[in-house]
């Protein structure tokens, strides 16, 4: 390990664990002699050469994953609010326009649900591929995931078009409002996920997504699977449970 040049106020890079175990002299060289014991490890932040975002935090948790899980945890409450609103209003008496039982096309929605489930499978296969350094397969699987997501969105647009033809608009009834807002927000999440996946695919085609950055794929995968589990709940609660 070469001696790093220190700038005023610069942070000390975290020494690699293998250097500690195998090369004591190198470990010694990486520590400027004037550092006090409290300066061995900087109090916050550090250089993240591996791109994992894991360097130099004292909780032992990986920052990008921790951030994503916190976001998903809050998103549970976000979607919960809209699902609860839908349950509250779906069968309110005196509503104009078609009812859920009249317009829902269960076989069609089952097919789009199947597509979204398959996209979760291709997502984990993409992660497994990049973890073992198979970048060609990673690009195939990540592109397949994005295409499955796009197919799901296309199905949702078709479904919305059919519903409007049958007279259900967002302002037709409280059922229409709560249905379009809930499923539309889910569709917006899927759309953001597609953009994210395509950006990963683009980075990989430019060789800017090495295996060492596989965690970026994992964090994107967490978001994608969350979108899938939310749809599992929506499909059951909104479409399948009888009125």
């Amino acid at each position, binding site marked *: 390990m070469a001696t790093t040049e220190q700038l005023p106020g610069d942070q000390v890079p975290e020494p690699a664990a293998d250097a*500690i175990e195998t090369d004591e002299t190198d470990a010694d060289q990486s520590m400027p002699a004037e550092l006090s014991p409290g300066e061995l490890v900087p109090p916050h932040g550090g250089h993240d050469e591996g791109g994992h975002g*894991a360097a130099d935090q004292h909780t032992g948790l990986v920052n990008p994953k*921790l951030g994503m899980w916190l976001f998903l945890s809050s998103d549970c409450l976000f979607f919960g609010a809209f699902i*609860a609103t839908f349950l509250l209003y779906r069968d309110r008496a005196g509503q104009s326009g078609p009812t859920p039982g009249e317009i829902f096309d269960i076989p069609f929605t089952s097919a789009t*649900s199947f597509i979204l489930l398959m996209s979760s499978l291709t997502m*984990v296969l993409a992660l497994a591929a990049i973890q073992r350094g198979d970048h060609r397969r990673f690009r195939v699987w990540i592109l397949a995931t994005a295409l499955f997501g796009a197919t799901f969105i296309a199905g949702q647009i078709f479904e919305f078009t059919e519903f409007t033809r049958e007279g259900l608009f967002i302002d037709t009834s409280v059922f229409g409002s709560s249905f379009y807002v809930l499923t539309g927000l889910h569709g917006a999440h899927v759309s953001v996920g597609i953009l994210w996946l395509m950006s990963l695919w683009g980075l990989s085609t430019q060789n800017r997504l090495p295996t060492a950055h596989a965690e970026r794929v994992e964090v994107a995968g967490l978001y994608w699977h969350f979108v899938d589990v939310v749809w599992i709940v929506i*499909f059951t609660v909104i479409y*399948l449970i009888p009125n």
Partner: protein
Amino acid sequence: MSDTTDVEPKSESVIERLEDHLPARDQHSAPGLLPGEVSKHPTPVQYVTIAVVLVVITAIEVAVSYTEGTIPNGLIVVLLLGMAGVKFFLVASWYMHLRTDQPMFRRFFIIGSVAAVLLYFIVLLSLHAFLEI
């Protein structure tokens, strides 16, 4: 640094100080694991197996929804919610790696999802939503 015996005590001292400050991930992660993992991710074969199970459960769900009128609605609701719960659990634990990642991630997600269910169940109860349905 020509005299190793002179350097060694100082090096050992530095190592001890470094080990005290190493992030916990270095104490948990084994070689070949991504940061934050406690054990290996599932294999592709296991991923495909989970996908098959998910598809089968979805097919059963759709079939159960068509039994409306032949079995009590309450039973249909319980069955559908149960199967959705199993699918939710399978995706979260296997595809989102909550089985193999650090327990703190699992706690965050459980807190968020349980809080959402409890909160909105109470809200719906207070608004008599279940009487309407």
